């Protein structure tokens, strides 16, 4: 028990030290950059594209019906491509919430986005 409690305290101290040392950079998703990243992931053209107001995530509808997610994860970027059936949307007051049928991806709130990319207005 002493080992577990000591380990937990040590973990808290190390995480605190990491934050104190400033290892907290967050990348911004910029449209040109995101388009280029998606183009590198798939040869399918982008039909429509949205980026959150905060610039922490972007979602592109591809010509073949799939969606490409670009989002910050810590100081890195993650790109994942999904079939349409694996993506669910819900419009919220603050923006578009996107949930993925993918246990390796958290839901995303695209702040300031109020329409599904590629959907008829």
């Amino acid at each position, binding site marked *: 028990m002493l080992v577990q409690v000591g380990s937990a305290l040590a973990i808290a101290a190390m995480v605190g030290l990491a934050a104190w040392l400033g290892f907290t950079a967050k990348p911004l998703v910029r449209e040109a950059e995101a388009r280029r990243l998606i183009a590198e992931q798939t040869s399918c053209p982008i039909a429509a594209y949205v980026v959150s107001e905060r610039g922490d995530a972007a979602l592109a509808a591809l010509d073949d019906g799939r969606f490409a997610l670009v989002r910050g*994860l810590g100081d890195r970027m993650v790109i994942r491509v999904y079939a349409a059936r694996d993506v669910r949307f819900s419009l919220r007051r603050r923006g578009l919430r996107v949930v993925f049928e993918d246990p390796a991806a958290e839901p995303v709130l695209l702040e300031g986005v109020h329409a599904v990319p590629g959907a008829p207005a």
Partner: protein
Amino acid sequence: MTEPPFPIPDPVTLAIPLFVALIVAEMLHVRRTGRGAYETRDAAASLAMGFGNVIAGLLTGGIYVAAAYAAYQFRIFDIGWTWWALVACFFAEDLAYYWFHRLSHERRFWWAAHVIHHSSQHYNLTTALRQTWTGAVSLSFATKLPLFLIGFPPEMVFLFSGLSLVYQFWIHTEAVGRLPGPIELIFNTPSHHRVHHAINPRYLDANYAGVLIIWDRMFGTFIPESDEEKPRYGIVSQIATFNPFRIAFHEWLAIGRDLIAHPRHAIGYLFGPPGWSHDGSRRTSRELKAAWSGGQRTAATDAFLPSERTHVL
């Protein structure tokens, strides 16, 4: 003499203060020199996975211990605690680790437990502690059972397994470059293990060693780190979460989804290589590597490869 001559300590528990001290030193080194990288939430996730691994070990470690002693009942030889037995056990345990580790990369059922360790896009000492919670589920200790059947005392094997884990901690760093030639020739080093954690096609499926890199050299899985291509870390399809529970179970859940969707192909989705699919819609690392080595970096190949830029923004 099959009883240990002295109480056998748990090397991993004893090494925890060393782990903490080295992580703190590495953080300060990265801050000062810019060599290597840390991210707070990534480090927190890795450390949480390590803590969870300890808890999981308390809950399920008995399965391994019971299997070890059960196998030992059927041992071929009575190997005592002699100097030559210690030497032989070190080599045998390290060889068994090589095959366990290789299996953990080449078959999805075992990969589901091991992918956790590779799920960070960073490569630092906290990554070493990003360990599985489900090792017992995948019976990942099975490759060690022959050691008990041969007759190595369980405590001796546990000792070397623990020492191997402690050894492997320090090689998870970008702060150490290449070591002098003889060391790189024989031992697993930070350079060799950076290759193991890399997702660049040229580096896939390589360097499974625990302590001795000689096994990779013997079995044809050794790839040296190239000055021309810096390793990029993580998994081919990067996970998009720091949630420890998602990290721990995402591949198991993905397997479950595949089994429900394609029950006729259950064997392939369970025991095929990671990336296998019945309709060829996914790519295994072998296919990715073959496409790369054939100089055929097509758009189709690129679709499954994280780009260089995903790691530098």
